[in-house]
C-alpha cells in the first residue's frame, strides 16, 4: 500500500503549486505513473480523496495516466513495448523483436511518477 505515500507526495507538490500560482480552488490534478511503479489506480484515488478532505478543495479530481513499459535494445537500438508481445505473460522476459537480444535492455519509459499539470482557479 504505497498509494498513501504517493497521494501524500502529490498533495505536497500541489499545495506548493497552488500557493506559488496564487490559486484558490483546485479543480483537477493530472499525473503520469509508469507501469513499473505498480500503482493501483483505484487505491491511489481513495487515498487522494481521503487527503482532500483536509483541504479547502475536497471536490478536486485526479486523473492518472498509466505509462507503458518501453525498452530499448542495447545491440540494435530498437525500441519496443514488451507488454505488447506475447512472451508467456511476462513483462520482462523480452527478447528484442528486431534482433532477439534478451539481456541488458534499457528502460526508456515506465518508471516515471510525475505531476503533469493542475487545473485551478
Amino acid at each position: 500500500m504505497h498509494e498513501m505515500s504517493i497521494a501524500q507526495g502529490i498533495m505536497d507538490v500541489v499545495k506548493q503549486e497552488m500557493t506559488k500560482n496564487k490559486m484558490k480552488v483546485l479543480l483537477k490534478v493530472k499525473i503520469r505513473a509508469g507501469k513499473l511503479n505498480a500503482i493501483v489506480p483505484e487505491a491511489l484515488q481513495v487515498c487522494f480523496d481521503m487527503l482532500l478532505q483536509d483541504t479547502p478543495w475536497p471536490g478536486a479530481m485526479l486523473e492518472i495516466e498509466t505509462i507503458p513499459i518501453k525498452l530499448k535494445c542495447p545491440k540494435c537500438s530498437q525500441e519496443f513495448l514488451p507488454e505488447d508481445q506475447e512472451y508467456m505473460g511476462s513483462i520482462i522476459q523480452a527478447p528484442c523483436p528486431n534482433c532477439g537480444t534478451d539481456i541488458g535492455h534499457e528502460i526508456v519509459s515506465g518508471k516515471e511518477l510525475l505531476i503533469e499539470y493542475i487545473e485551478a482557479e
Partner: protein
Amino acid sequence: MKIPVIRKILEKNEERATELRERFDKNNTLVLNLISSPGAGKTTLLVRTLSALKDQFKMGVIEGDIQTTADAERIAQTGVQTVQINTEGACHLDSNMIYAATQKMDLGGLDILFVENVGNLVCPAEFKVGEDFKIALLSIPEGDDKPEKYPLLFSEAKVLLLNKIDLLPYLDFDVEKVKRVVKTLNKDIEIFMVSAKTGQGFDEWLTWLKNRVLEKKQGK
C-alpha cells in the same frame, strides 16, 4: 486555468535522500539498502555478515523490519551499533525515517551502514534512502517467478542474493531462469548464491562487500 507542473511526486523524499547521500559520501560510509519479501532472510544474513566483518570494519544497522523483538536482539548480540525504526503499518522506509535514525547514531568513521527495509518487494524500490546500492534478497522457497512479478526492484538492485540455497535440493527453483530474467533489465547485476543459515557462498558476498568498502574509502 491549466498550470503545467512537471514535478516528481516523490521529490521531497529524493531531496532528503540526496542530502543523506552527501553526508554518507563525505564520511566515506558505504550504505546498503536491503530489500526482500518478509522472511527471505535479511536479518539472518545481516547477523552472519556482521559477525564475519566486525573485527575489520566499523558498521551500523538501521533496522526497519522488526517482526519480533527477537530480531533486534539477534542483531544487538553481534555488538554492532543498531537503531530500530518503528515502522508499524508502514510498507517501506523513506528518507525522513533514515534521517531521524541517523540522528541517534554515531556515524563517525563508519565503514558500512546497512538498512534493513520493510519486507516488501514493491515500494521499497521506489523510495531512496541515501543508499549507494540496493541489495535484493530472494529466497529459494519464494519461487523463481518473483523477478518477473516485481521487475522494478530487480532492475535497480546492484546485487541479488539468492538465499536459502541449502533448500535447493528440495524445491523446484530454476536458478538459470532467474539469472536470465534479471539480466533482461539489469545486465551488470551481481548474483551470489548464499545460505545465511549454513554460510555457504558467503566468501564471494563478503569479498564483494570488502571491495566496495575499499572503493568508498578511495572516494569512488
